[in-house]
């Protein structure tokens, strides 16, 4: 693992990449991070002088969609990020080593770069039965996670699994799957939610950490603010139809063809913080709302447990039947209305039948 001490620049020069291409890459990365033109030279300087940051990529309970997304990054290209920028010492999905060799790399990195490596975690650990639902390298994943987290500089929680729990933590959560921040409490954790997160956000975040040697500014929920400070709704290209009051009513009506707002179809855009409507997917080609389907809210906490993907209100199960807030409220108001009407009727009857009594007994003004 000696190559982890060399710089990004020396690595790419060895690979035959010209200095001109290197500066192009720096400019494009600066632009994709939304930084000023001067920052391009800062990035170049950092990549020329700073040792490459070792990254350990662990996989817990997950579906590998984060990895699938990551390897499709266009800005920066994933081959640049993987082969040159970071020193991805361990990632059991894409590494060449296997078995005892692979496990030896973990030991070595942990000892050699204590407090300097970044631990990227895809998926989350199950906690019930001592974590026996996810065995990795012969021991429960939760133990491996704790062990590797001890020596890490920071932890990146890739995807909704590691950030919030996602599908394996959805009710009734038989394995006790829990997000990373429930297990590791003494290290900075960067949440990068999304199922999967956008490729450019993932590689952009890695580039930021490698370049500046520090963590980006995080919001209240531990997400990098530069990517998660606005909702899908805030930059949605259908927003003008929302403000105009033009909504799709059915999946096959003419408003679908006109590209009206999907709010009434249960689009979760107004409650979902992510950069889909700004960065988009697959190199900026499209994103769910653009392809005609409402946002599912995959980067939000517990999005599997909030009822239908086609209803904007959370399903409330405490009432025995699955209903949403408006139906419950309307029913309660209706029952109350009937009660009031009945009470009024009884009052009227009482008043008519006891009129002489009341007239005699009353008569004092307030």
């Amino acid at each position, binding site marked *: 693992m000696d190559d982890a001490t060399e710089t990004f620049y020396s690595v790419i020069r060895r690979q035959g990449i010209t200095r001109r291409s290197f500066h192009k890459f720096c400019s494009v990365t600066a632009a994709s991070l939304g930084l000023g033109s001067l920052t391009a030279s800062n990035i170049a300087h950092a990549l020329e002088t700073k040792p490459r940051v070792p990254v350990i990529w662990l996989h817990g309970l997950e579906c590998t969609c984060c990895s699938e997304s990551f390897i499709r990054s266009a800005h920066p290209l994933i081959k640049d990020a993987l082969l040159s920028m970071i020193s991805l010492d361990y990632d059991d999905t894409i590494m060449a080593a296997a078995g005892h060799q692979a496990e030896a790399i973990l030991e070595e990195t942990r000892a050699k770069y204590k407090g300097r490596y970044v631990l990227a975690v895809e998926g989350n650990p199950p906690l019930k039965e001592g974590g026996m639902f996810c065995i990795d390298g012969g021991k429960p994943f939760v133990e491996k996670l704790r062990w590797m987290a001890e020596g890490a500089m920071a932890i990146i929680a890739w995807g909704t699994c590691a950030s919030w729990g996602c599908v394996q933590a959805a009710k009734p959560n038989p394995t006790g799957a829990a997000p990373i921040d429930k297990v590791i409490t003494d290290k900075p954790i960067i949440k990068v939610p999304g199922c999967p997160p956008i490729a450019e956000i993932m590689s952009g975040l890695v580039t930021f950490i490698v370049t500046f040697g520090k963590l980006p500014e995080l919001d209240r929920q531990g997400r990098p603010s530069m990517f998660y400070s606005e909702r899908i709704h805030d930059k949605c290209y259908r927003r003008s139809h929302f403000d*105009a009051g033009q909504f799709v009513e059915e999946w096959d009506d003419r408003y679908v063809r006109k590209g009206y707002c999907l709010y009434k179809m249960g689009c979760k855009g107004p409650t979902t913080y992510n950069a889909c409507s700004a960065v988009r997917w697959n190199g900026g080609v499209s994103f769910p709302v653009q392809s005609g389907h409402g946002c599912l809210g995959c980067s939000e906490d517990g999005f599997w447990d909030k009822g239908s993907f086609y209803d904007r209100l959370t399903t409330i199960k405490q009432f025995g039947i699955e209903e949403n807030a408006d139906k419950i409220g309307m029913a309660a108001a209706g029952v109350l209305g009937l009660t009031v009407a009945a009470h009024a009727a009884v009052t009227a009857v009482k008043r008519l039948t006891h009129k002489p009594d009341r007239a005699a007994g009353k008569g004092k003004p*307030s």
Partner: protein
Amino acid sequence: MLDRGKLLTADDAAPTDRSIGGGVAHVYAPVRLWHWANAAAILVLSLTGYLIGTGTPAMKGEASRNFLFGYIRFAHFAAGYVASVGFLLRIYWALMGNAHAIQIFCVPLWRGCFWREVYQEILWYAFLTGDPDRRPGHDRLAQLAMFFMFTQTITFMVVTGFALYGQGAGTDSWQYKVFGWLFSIWPNSQDVHTLHHLGLWVIVMFALVHIYAVIREDIISRRSFFSKKIG
């Protein structure tokens, strides 16, 4: 400002204070002003809130020529500000006004006599007893309903409303800075939307009972709380 002990004493003593005779206008004026401003704001908030929750029928023409949903949301936000500021003034009046003004904020649940009066009023509303004692201010059941269904709900609606508004205004807005802590409790704002909807229905139910009780009281006991407020 009165200290807490004094307020509680005043609150507790209020129903037996029969010395207000002709000063009804003086006793109720600021509260009555607030009541109707608040009622109007809540009416606008409920109607626009329901429309925002369910969406409007599609408007014809280009998006650039329509702004219906924008106007509905504007009315909701404007009425929200009116209700919030009004509620703050109402809290101020509860502390600075007369002894009755604090009744909707402070219910003496720990007093035996309070529960005896509640029991009497339940009998009265269940047609099991004759005329209960008439006193100025709210009766005890009304006080309970106001505190648990109105005061608490409206506080909740103001907080959740501003938090949701802050999401639209941006994470650097004062609304998000002041009320954004709500999203530490409910990280997914969909839950906050849902609870905000439920709050609407609590307010609707309160309004139903409130209006019925007031009209009924006005007709039956000639207490004329209602006609005085209207008049």
